[in-house]
């Protein structure tokens, strides 16, 4: 019996909380709060419910323990690791020889930086840039929009700055429920006297703490933000010096927001004009302000423009490049920032270096010792449509669950059925595994070690706290074995021969400018982590970006002028009279693969409840607890109803954890390629419980039972 306290990073949301896992002989028995580590992102070791239940999913009964091979769809036999790796390597090699663009790789924001680096390296060494991950479905507009305005697609400040701000503008983000530990800093600022402005179609737990609450219609963000900018410019509240010295394109902004008067915005968004004026004045005159946003703002066909407008709003008020101010996109997954940095994206090499840039490509050709493709690859949704046409034939999915998480899930399932070859690497059975040809059991995040990047660009090292079950192996090991089997067996950066995760990180240090000084030795010593960019080993890390200049080519912020208003693609009409939006529960996590295997969380958030305004419910004769059927042009979804005044009239809100994405729209943002999951037209019918049960059987089960023949 040797009991150890192992410092790990919480594997749930993007706050990057530190905690200790108490493990006895490699078996996790409990947790301890990390209240003795200074400067961590969750001060005093505070944790939310998910963080408290962190060991429960590790002990789930149905963890994948051996590689599986499908005999027919949904039926599996156990095989050995060597067979599995040999088969995958042969198949990948065959496709790559034919045409590498038939392959599609999915990185994962749920695992460490190292496997993400390796999977994109594998894809690119095979000759394709078809590599993407779930940031495409959440923060792609953040990366593209902030890059367009400021030159880098990451949070410009840290949680400490939120605490020091005088005004916090939260838009499309239920902060209190999605990141309770991050919300701590908002409340601390509020106690100091800061003002909180919340814009959200639902009166959320966050809005409860707002000084000014703007309830707009889903998808009307462009009008709302333009309205705020209009008032700020009209009343000359902007920071003239900052605009003159550090921004370009201000005159276009002035003419673009001309028509967005508060009265016009009131018509479009449903927010009273005087509230817009008040919010604008409060925001612009505070002196230090932070804007935070999340999926409610980005998951739109105009998500990219939304983010550019927010960057503009922040820049004209001069809230950039100083402490206590900035733009803070809140990442939903523990390593979504890291996966983007490691370039599990179709258009960049590690460190956001464009694949189309011949100079950068030359460097990586030198570094990896192969010829690389200069074409931008496919994104997740594009790949699904390409697979439909037969252009993409094989998927390699690492730690993702597209069946629940992607918009228009019915189409995704149809696509997965059509694929010739699908490899899924995961820790527990997910609905996606039903379609797999080969399933690889991976070790969970707490069962191996590696570096992880949280939402505020803080890179931390997480240590191994438990033994993986059965034959499950770390992600980096699996990909490096596959790489070696394909034939990339040179040592150093030209092959896939690694001893441990730290070796991979050293290679990342060598080719990623932002991570140059973030060595494994430094991270292991410094539990609080280092903020990138960190150009050398003696550099302490950067807390606030853009202090001197922006990272755009000319060093100035490029303000965005968006003169025409665009709402959601699909507006309510006669046939589908309601507007559907999706949200999250505090104790459930994304596609519930982990949280529904944890008793404490399952007990408290057992099922989705669709929220309806009392007046709408009365017309349809619906009471709280009735079963209803939600229909859109793409699918149907049964759910229990909850009649509540928190939503706006004419809006239905459903938590998407249990697969509500069969309803949502997969119309894409032209730049960021994000589907519009946050607004579409729907209709509601009251149904009986038997009907609901029948409909539920048709939906993909979130926790499937695998049919496995023991080998």
């Amino acid at each position, binding site marked *: 019996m040797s009991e150890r306290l192992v410092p790990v990073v919480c594997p749930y949301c993007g706050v990057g909380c530190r905690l200790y896992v108490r493990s006895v002989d490699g078996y996790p028995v409990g947790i301890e709060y990390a209240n003795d580590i200074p400067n961590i992102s969750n001060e005093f070791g505070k944790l939310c419910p998910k963080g408290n239940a962190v060991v429960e999913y590790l002990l789930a009964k149905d963890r994948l323990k051996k590689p599986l091979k499908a005999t027919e769809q949904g039926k599996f036999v156990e095989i050995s690791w060597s067979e599995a790796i040999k088969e995958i390597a042969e198949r990948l090699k065959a496709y790559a020889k034919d045409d590498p663009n038939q392959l599609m790789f999915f990185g994962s924001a749920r695992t460490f930086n190292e496997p993400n680096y390796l999977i994109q390296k594998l894809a690119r060494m095979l000759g394709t840039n078809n590599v993407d991950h779930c940031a495409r479905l959440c923060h792609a507009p953040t990366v593209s929009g902030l890059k367009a305005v400021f030159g880098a697609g990451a949070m410009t400040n840290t949680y400490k700055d939120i605490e020091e701000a005088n005004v916090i503008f939260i838009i499309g983000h239920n902060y209190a429920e999605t990141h309770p530990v991050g919300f*701590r800093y908002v409340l601390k600022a509020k106690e100091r006297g800061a003002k909180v402005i919340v814009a959200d179609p639902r009166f959320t737990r966050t809005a409860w703490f707002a000084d000014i609450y703007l309830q707009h219609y889903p998808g009307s963000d462009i009008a709302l933000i333009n309205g705020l900018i209009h008032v700020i410019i009209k009343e000359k509240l902007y920071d003239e010096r900052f605009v003159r010295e550090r921004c370009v394109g201000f005159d276009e902004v002035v003419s673009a927001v001309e028509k967005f008067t508060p009265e016009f915005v009131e018509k479009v968004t449903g927010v009273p004009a005087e509230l817009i004026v008040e919010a604008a004045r409060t925001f612009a005159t505070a002196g230090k302000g932070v804007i935070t946003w999340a999926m409610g703002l980005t998951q739109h066909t105009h998500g990219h423009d939304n983010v550019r407008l927010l960057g503009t709003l922040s820049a004209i008020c001069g809230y950039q490049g100083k402490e206590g101010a900035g733009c803070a996109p809140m990442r939903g997954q523990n390593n979504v920032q890291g996966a983007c940095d490691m370039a599990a994206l179709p258009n960049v090499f590690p460190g956001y270096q464009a694949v189309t840039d011949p100079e950068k490509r030359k460097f990586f050709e030198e570094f990896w010792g192969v010829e690389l493709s200069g074409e931008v690859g496919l994104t997740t949704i594009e790949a699904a449509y390409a697979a439909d046409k037969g252009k993409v034939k094989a998927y390699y999915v690492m730690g993702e669950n597209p069946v629940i998480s992607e918009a228009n899930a019915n189409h995704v399932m149809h696509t997965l059925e059509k694929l010739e070859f699908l490899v899924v690497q995961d820790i527990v059975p997910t609905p996606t595994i039903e379609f797999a040809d080969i399933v690889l059991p991976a070790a969970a995040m707490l069962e191996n070690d590696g570096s992880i990047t949280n939402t505020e660009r803080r890179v931390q090292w997480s240590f191994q706290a438990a033994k993986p079950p059965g034959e499950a192996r770390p992600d980096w090991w699996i990909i490096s074995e596959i790489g070696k089997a394909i034939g990339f067996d040179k040592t150093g950066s030209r092959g896939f021969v690694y001893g441990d995760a730290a070796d991979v990180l050293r290679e990342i240090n060598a080719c990623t400018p932002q991570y140059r000084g973030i060595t494994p030795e430094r991270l292991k010593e410094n539990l609080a982590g280092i903020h990138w960019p960190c150009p050398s080993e003696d550099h302490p890390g950067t807390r606030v970006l853009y202090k001197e200049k922006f990272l755009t080519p000319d060093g100035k912020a490029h303000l965005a002028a968006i003169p025409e208003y665009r709402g959601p693609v699909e507006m309510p009409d006669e046939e589908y009279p309601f507007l559907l939006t999706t949200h999250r529960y505090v104790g459930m996590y994304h596609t519930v693969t982990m949280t529904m295997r944890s008793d404490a969380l399952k007990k408290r958030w057992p099922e989705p409840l669709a929220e309806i305004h009392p007046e709408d419910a009365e017309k349809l004769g619906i009471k709280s607890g009735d079963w209803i059927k939600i229909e859109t042009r793409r699918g149907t979804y049964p759910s229990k109803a909850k009649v509540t005044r928190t939503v706006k009239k004419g809006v239905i809100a459903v938590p998407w954890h249990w697969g509500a994405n069969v309803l949502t729209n997969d119309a894409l943002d032209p730049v960021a390629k994000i589907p519009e999951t946050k607004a579409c037209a729907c209709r509601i019918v009251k149904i009986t419980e038997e009907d609901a049960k029948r409909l539920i059987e048709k939906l993909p089960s979130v926790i499937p039972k695998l049919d496995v023949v023991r080998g």
Partner: protein
Amino acid sequence: MVRKTVFIDFSKCIECRACEVACEREHNGMSFISVFEWQEMAAMALNCRHCEKAPCVEVCPTNALYRDEDGAVLLAPQKCIGCLMCGIVCPFGIPELDLINKVMGKCDLCAHRRAEGKLPACVETCPTDALLYGEFNEIIRKRREKFTEKTIELAKTGENIQLTGV
């Protein structure tokens, strides 16, 4: 006698239920703090107040409820006969019956953690500091200090604030 208990600041509770999950983990699948939602808006957590004149201690026929040296009201399951009296007399309805063992269960202020000099799990985990562990007068004093500091701070920066006559 200085009694430390868990106080709840309702103005900060965000109904995330981290305290419930933490309590459940520390007490083998039973949570002795519960969070309620009121009128779709306000949330409040409720736990044992460890009263100074605790009716549950007075009413218990077998003396299963007792106080430890910190003044917390604990329950000795060996002595409990599951007569439910404590649950009836408690104004907050805190003691619950454990249906498997037919004995009552209630918050013990994390006795095992206090023995190691740590705070109760619910307080340790609360992301917004809505749960405060301490002695009543101490917490009130801290509150006053904070308010006074803020007032002085405002008086320093504010232009037209007159503090005379306050």
